[in-house]
Structure formats: C-alpha cells, structure tokens
C-alpha cells in the first residue's frame, strides 16, 4: 500500500514562504504590554487615597508566541519544512484556518524560530514542534 502523508485538516501554515506538511496543531498567543501600575502616594493629611502612574512604566513588552506541531512519517517523503528553518533567524509566517474567503488569517513578518523539538520513533512516526517568538504582535485578517 502506498504511503499517504498526513496533511492536516484544511489549515495552512507557511513559514519562510514554505507550506508545512503534516500540520496538526497551531497555537497562537498574542500578549500586550502589562497594564501600567498605579502607585499609592497618599499623605497623612489626605482624606482619600491618591495614586500616581509608575514613572518606571510597565515591565516587559508585547509578545507573540506561535507554536506549530507537524506530524510526519520517517518512511515517506512528506518532509516538514520546519527542519529547514534557521534557529533564531527572523522569518515571515502566515496561518490560515482554511482557504475560504472571509475566514481568518494570521500574519507576522518578523518571527524568530526559538525552539524546535523533533521526536522520532523506531516505528516510523515523527512529530516536529516549532516555537516562534516575537516582541511585536501579528495581525489577524481575512483570507483573500
């Protein structure tokens, strides 16, 4: 019986313009800056509590984390392109929930591949999970 690669369920994910094969799961986590802290500056003579913005500002920055997991087979040619990305380099990613117009699409131009975990078993199955990070947010839009 000919080998049929696992191809996911209609989602598409491109990294550095290459479509990933065997797409199984995508997790996107966009986080904004922490809210500005308010410090208490109430004096003894005050009749009510007063506060002032923390001059040091919030801690941290915006952060986007995208985790993509692909299933693969070591016996087939459905070789995932995640293995051909350079760790730490900025790349362009795009994720679409389907090819249908008006469905959601997520784009980010400067994500860094921070982590790549490859798991292979002797029975020919493989899973590759890539974690991308950036200090800016991506944008959601419609598939065009």
């Amino acid at each position, binding site marked *: 019986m000919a080998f049929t690669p696992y191809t996911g369920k209609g989602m598409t994910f491109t990294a550095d313009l290459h479509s990933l094969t065997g797409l199984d799961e995508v997790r996107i986590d966009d986080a904004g800056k922490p809210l500005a802290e308010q410090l208490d500056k109430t004096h003894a003579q005050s009749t009510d509590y007063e506060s002032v913005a923390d001059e040091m500002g919030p801690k941290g920055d915006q952060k986007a984390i995208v985790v993509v997991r692909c299933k693969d087979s070591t*016996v087939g*040619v459905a070789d995932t392109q995640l293995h051909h990305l350079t760790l730490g380099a900025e790349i362009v990613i795009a994720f679409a929930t389907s090819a249908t117009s008006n469905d959601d699409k997520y784009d980010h131009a400067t994500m860094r591949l921070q*982590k790549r*975990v490859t798991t*292979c078993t002797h029975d020919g199955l493989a899973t590759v999970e890539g974690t991308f990070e950036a200090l800016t947010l991506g944008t959601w839009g419609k598939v065009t």
Partner: protein
Amino acid sequence: MAYTPYTGKSVGALLKVNSAVMPGWKKIVIEETAAPLPARLNDTEAADSAYTTMADPMGAKGTPKTTITIDGLASKPSFNDAGGPFNLAVDTAYAVLFQKATGVDKFAITPVLKRRPRVQALGKLSEYTLTLELDAAETWSAN
C-alpha cells in the same frame, strides 16, 4: 544458536552514535533552542506621555543549545560490547547522525554525552536512555 541482537523495527530510519548503529533504539528526541530574544529595557521618563522601551545594549543572554535524548532496549551482549555505545565516556563528545529515512532529512552533530542511565532487567533486554548536549545549533540537511 547464533546471537541475534535486538535492532528495533527496521523502517529505514538510521541512528548512529560514534559511527556505530544504535542497537534497539525506540525513540529519539532532538530539542534545539535558539539564543533568547534580546531583552528590552524600559526607557520611560517622568515627562513621557507613553511608555517607551529600548533594546538591551548587552544583547541577548545565553547561546543556542541542542539536547538529544535516545531511549531504547538493548541486550546484555550489546551492553557488554566494549566498543559499543554504552561504554562511551561521559563528558566526551561523540558524533551523532540521525537520518529520518533514506532520501529525507538528516541531522549530524557532535554533542557531549552527559548521561547514560540504564534499568537492568532480569530478562535479556534492558532499557537505556542516553542524553547528549551541546551549546550550539546545528542544521538539518537534505540527505
């Protein structure tokens, strides 16, 4: 009867440590981590109406890291093989070659053997785990 070593299910994937095929390997996990993102420092002044940040002039902390974990079963003759992978010196670098299948990606690196625990069973096979590490990134290449 001639001794036949346990070799796992043969599907074309190839794993070599120190130029020798790993006997009875069941699973390999290759974890590659890039250097951390550069930190951003808060640059907000009292007169600023919005919060601002700047890149940390010290740059990113740390270096890339690769960790390889190999799980499997091996027979007593394999463990007792003086030239085999279970008698390699810890804290020494050895070449590791992993090829997913003929004609597809392969990963070649020379990490340092850090751990080699083994569960000794009463039967003919014992479980083993080898852990190798390197403070560097390697690239996957087409076979």
